[in-house]
């Protein structure tokens, strides 16, 4: 369980997973933040107002998937590195997952990296499609990775070493 080992359970994930209909419309945010902590940058990060909090900054973030266009702006702004974007419309076989990255070296588009699950298990080597920087101050990179449709809801981390992962 999340509280004992840090791994969100299937039930946790279901609560923050958009509907199949929404997935079919294009990229969409997944906010894997399950504990009430005094934190709210995600709310300000979304210029479309898709993320809100009822009450004070301790409340859990709530997403309106109809307002989210999957731009990914919020990913690098979450101090908990808990926000991801999934695009199941990327191609028939592949989906795109955008995730935050704060390690060195930083992979480049076109390179292959090891995809890891929420438990840190290896899920296979896949290609980086895009890398964006959060800027000088933010310093968090956002990596877009193309992975098989079946694992897109599993991949939440990448490992990259220069001498191959």
């Amino acid at each position: 369980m999340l509280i004992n080992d840090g791994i969100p359970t299937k039930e946790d994930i279901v609560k923050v997973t958009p509907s199949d209909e929404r997935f079919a419309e294009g990229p969409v945010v997944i906010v894997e933040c399950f504990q009430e902590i005094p934190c709210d940058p995600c709310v300000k990060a979304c210029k479309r107002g898709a993320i809100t909090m009822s009450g004070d900054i301790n409340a859990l973030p709530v997403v309106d998937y109809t307002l989210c266009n999957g731009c990914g702006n919020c990913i690098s702004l979450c101090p908990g590195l808990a926000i991801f974007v999934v695009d199941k419309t990327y191609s028939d076989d592949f989906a795109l997952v955008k995730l935050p990255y704060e390690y060195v070296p930083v992979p480049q588009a076109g390179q292959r990296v090891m995809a890891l699950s929420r438990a840190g298990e290896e899920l296979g080597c896949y290609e980086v499609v895009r890398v964006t920087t959060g800027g000088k101050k933010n310093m968090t990179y956002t990596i877009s990775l193309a992975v098989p449709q079946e694992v897109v809801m599993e991949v939440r981390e990448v490992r990259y070493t220069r001498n191959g992962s």
Partner: protein
Amino acid sequence: MIKNVEIMVIGGGPAGLCAALSASDLGVGISAPDLGVGISAPDLGVGISAPDLGVGVLLVERDDVAGGQLVKQTHKFFGSEKQYAGDRGIHIGQMLVEKAQADSNIEIWTDSTVLGIYEDGVVTVLHEDKHIKVKPERIIIATGAAEKFLAFPGNDLPGIYGAGAVQTLMNVAGVKPAERVLMVGAGNIGLIVSYQLKQAGIDVVAVIEGQPKIGGYLVHASKIRRAGIPVLTRHTILEAYGNGRVEGALITEIDESWLPIPGTERKIVCDTICLAVGLSPLTELAWQAGCEMGFIRELSGHVPIFDENLETTCPGIYCAGDVCGIEEASSAMVEGRLAGINAAASLGYGVSEAEKFRKDAMIELEELRSGDMGGHIRVGLEKMYARCKK
């Protein structure tokens, strides 16, 4: 010579820096005696007669740079925009230090340690190898906290560090302190330092935690877990072993009463064991000044008894930040601000604005502490105020 100051802030962490800034904002120093605004007094040794040099706010910091814990926090902070959430700790620290440096009402002494606070109101400071006496009208103690240690066989082997020490080596000195680390403690510090070790290319074999639950933020735990670092709750360290330095640790699963479960012991090969088992408030100066102290477990041990204005039982001595209860940088900053406002207002500065600023700060603190994670602080403060009224 005695240096006269209106407000002396002890400790240049987020609490101390915010205390100095808010006191200056209310006007402390503008009417400083003799030489005018925030003059940096030339440093004259004890016994050399000189005119009475006045200063508004004097901030004294033991380390060679101000910033406190923030100088090594490379991760992005939580909280709300008002407490600079989303910014990295180091950047928040730099920003506060630059603001204080640019403020002519504030004089900053780094590499300077406050040694004692005496009954006649004199504070002694070791500053540039000289023993200097300062006579402040108000004192704000913001000395932060020190890391706790853990008793187990082999804990004196080289290779056993406090997590904060490892963080300093890594993030301040730029040294790679280890190859393979066992982290003890899954509070925020254990989780965050594990993440930073991983960022520095160091293997963290596991984070072990005696409690059945992870104490730190779960988003931090998830972040290191998916990077491949196991978090093992209900586990403890039995001993460290090695010939002349740490070569590994023996860990075990424990039951509800913290007793090892036979047959679950295992060896972890590592060259470093990092202890992140909590902090205790650095209260020596408060004790020595004669502040009434109380043991409040929820605030992490012995703390000076203080009222809602953060004033201790010694009139004119305030406290703020981790020294009066281990919490967060976000709340330390707000508490610092509150102590600065109250100290300044008690000297007659900005009395008309003070009330509003005080209210704003109280609301921010309440908000930061209103969630699940703030539960123990709320309980601790209730006990504090109950004692204070007596």
